[in-house]
């Protein structure tokens, strides 16, 4: 039972990290959005698994909200922004693909090193995934600082949020519901405000 639980969460967490790495070599915004959408669906799956095996029924509800908000609404807003950008031209990151992948490898190693004390004090079946969650946080941060286009930075930021949600799910079976709901509200408002500001950027740079 615990072995299945542990294996399922570990596999899903690794899948989420891989989906973040996709952003590093793809050059089109649509690929970024697809990667984020898929990652969010996997996150919702992790929520469901933790709810089932960890006996935390309220996480089923959280998973459904993740699915609706991050798997559907947010990607839809992002697609709208991409349409408004008027150009399907390639993105030009500040760091080339090879270097990016090397840096992210180093970040993953660092995440394992940093999270060692955390894994030592925990006895949950999910603890194996914690370094992966931390690695996802670091890789997402790297995406934000190494991309020039606003929309790519937003995707990086959203993946960072996914990484933190994964950390909370694996580390403590989710944060208290009132905080969780507040976070969802912030993500939704945050993305809408980011969209508004990015439209302002398009307007002012068109002049």
């Amino acid at each position, binding site marked *: 039972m615990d072995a299945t639980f542990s294996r399922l969460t570990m596999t899903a967490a690794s899948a989420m990290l891989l989906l973040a790495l996709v952003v590093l070599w793809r050059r089109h915004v649509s690929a970024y959005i697809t990667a984020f959408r898929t990652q969010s669906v996997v996150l919702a799956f992790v929520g469901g698994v933790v709810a089932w095996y960890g006996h935390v029924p309220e996480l089923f509800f959280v998973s459904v909200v993740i699915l609706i908000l991050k798997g559907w609404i947010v990607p839809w807003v992002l697609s709208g922004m991409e349409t408004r950008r008027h150009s399907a031209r390639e993105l030009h990151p500040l760091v080339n693909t090879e270097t990016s992948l090397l840096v992210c490898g180093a970040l993953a190693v660092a995440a394992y090193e*940093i999270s060692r*004390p*955390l894994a*030592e*004090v*925990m*006895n949950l079946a999910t603890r194996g995934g914690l370094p992966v969650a931390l690695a996802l*946080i670091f890789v997402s*941060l790297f995406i*934000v600082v190494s991309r020039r286009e*606003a929309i790519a*930075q937003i995707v990086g*930021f959203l993946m*960072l*949020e996914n990484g*933190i949600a994964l*950390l*909370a799910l694996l*580390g*403590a*079976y989710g*944060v*208290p519901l*009132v*905080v969780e709901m*507040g*976070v969802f*509200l*912030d993500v939704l*408002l*945050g993305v809408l*405000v*980011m969209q*508004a*500001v*990015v439209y*302002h*950027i398009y*307007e*002012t*740079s068109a*002049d």
Partner: protein
Amino acid sequence: MDLILVLALLTPPFAAALLALVVRREPGRVAWLNALTMPVSFATAAAIAVRLAEGGAPVVVGDLWRLDALSALLAVLVSGVATLAAALGPGLDRGHRVPAGETRTFRLWANLFAFTMLVAVSTGNLGVMWVAIEATTVTSALLIPLRRTKASVDASWKYLLIGSVGIALAFTGTVLAYVDFATTGADINVALHWTSLRAAATALHPQVARLAFVFLLVGFGTKAGLAPMHMWLPDAHSEAPSPLSAMMSGVLLAVALYAIVRWKTIVDLAVGSAFSDSLLIIVGMTTAAVGSFSLLSQTHFKRLLAFSSIEHMGLACFGLALGPLGVFAALLHLSAHALAKSAAFLLSGRVLERYGSGTIAGARGLLVTAPHTAVLFAAGIFALGGLPPFGLFLSEILIVKAGWEAGHPVLTGIVLVLLLVAFGSLLVQLHRMLFGAAAPGVVRGERATVSVVLLAIPVMLLVWLGVSMPPQLQSLLNHAVLVVRP
């Protein structure tokens, strides 16, 4: 009773924001209502502060709301500056008409911004505190490009992105602390509550608590403008409309430092204060140095004020690491800075309006063109430079004293040098603005309007603070120190 207090504190800004959202016509009336009801929020915060200063019990409502002396101090600052900004914001001055849309946008977001800051300081749940501080970024970012210039839109984006990412790191720290708490076997339903966190703090695992604090310091430090995460601050604070700059510089930075102080208290109980103190000293000194050495090279007066905020946050951060006296000094410093910086930013808005330019060189002859504004602005700059008889002089002396007594003579010496550099630079820049011949075409002379009288209030309060500290404030600060260092 406590429920009424919390409602009276939070309702005025929230209701005003709702009203601005719903009422499409005549935003001027919304503005009036806003200016007339915000004092209710301020008076409530003051009443709570007096109760706690007299040793009363914290204001507690349910699981969510809890105001102790530290919260009350911040609530007074936030609601005070928000009241000033509401009274001086767009839509009220008949002599100076602004587009109706601008008034409406301002009243909507500025009030939501004040509301989120008040929630952040009045909640007893550190998870909700994080949610509220994250929301401060969202509510203030759209207001920065009120006039859609390219510079303001870019500043807004930089602020939004760096602020959101920084605050996400703070959430990582919050989650790490929560994970740690969950492993101690305590009731996780109340895990992020201040009282239960503090009770369980000694059982936390030191390594995890340290890791969490690093994330929290970097995250909330980004919002507090601590170096090297301060790059967004000069742009955002200088491009924002002046009443918003006043709120961002005067109190938002203080609210972010408040979050750091809360977590520092918990982490100190788990691992001892040496760890967090040394981090705060390094970050504080770096920030103060970045701020003070950047002052002289600024060419725009609002950027000058923004870098001065960075310097003062560095000083406060340094003070927080210096034991009880240092915490006392840092909290006093934050209070005095809130008064001085909000007044200075609001006055800079008047200068900007008069000259139509934000450059220091372009605002020559201020004493002749706008004498009232000039005198108050000069007083504000003197206060920020740490000159007596203003409140910041007192708090800076106390920070230096605390540094000396805590056994950091070299660092204290460096702080003194930084203070002198900041003072000299501010004085040189002020001199450039006050004197000289104003450009032809700039209107000369100024009437003593209600706005001028309102702006004189924070300046007079600063003098009061510096000359004789009110005993209630002293008592409130002492109680707040006890919250941080039990």
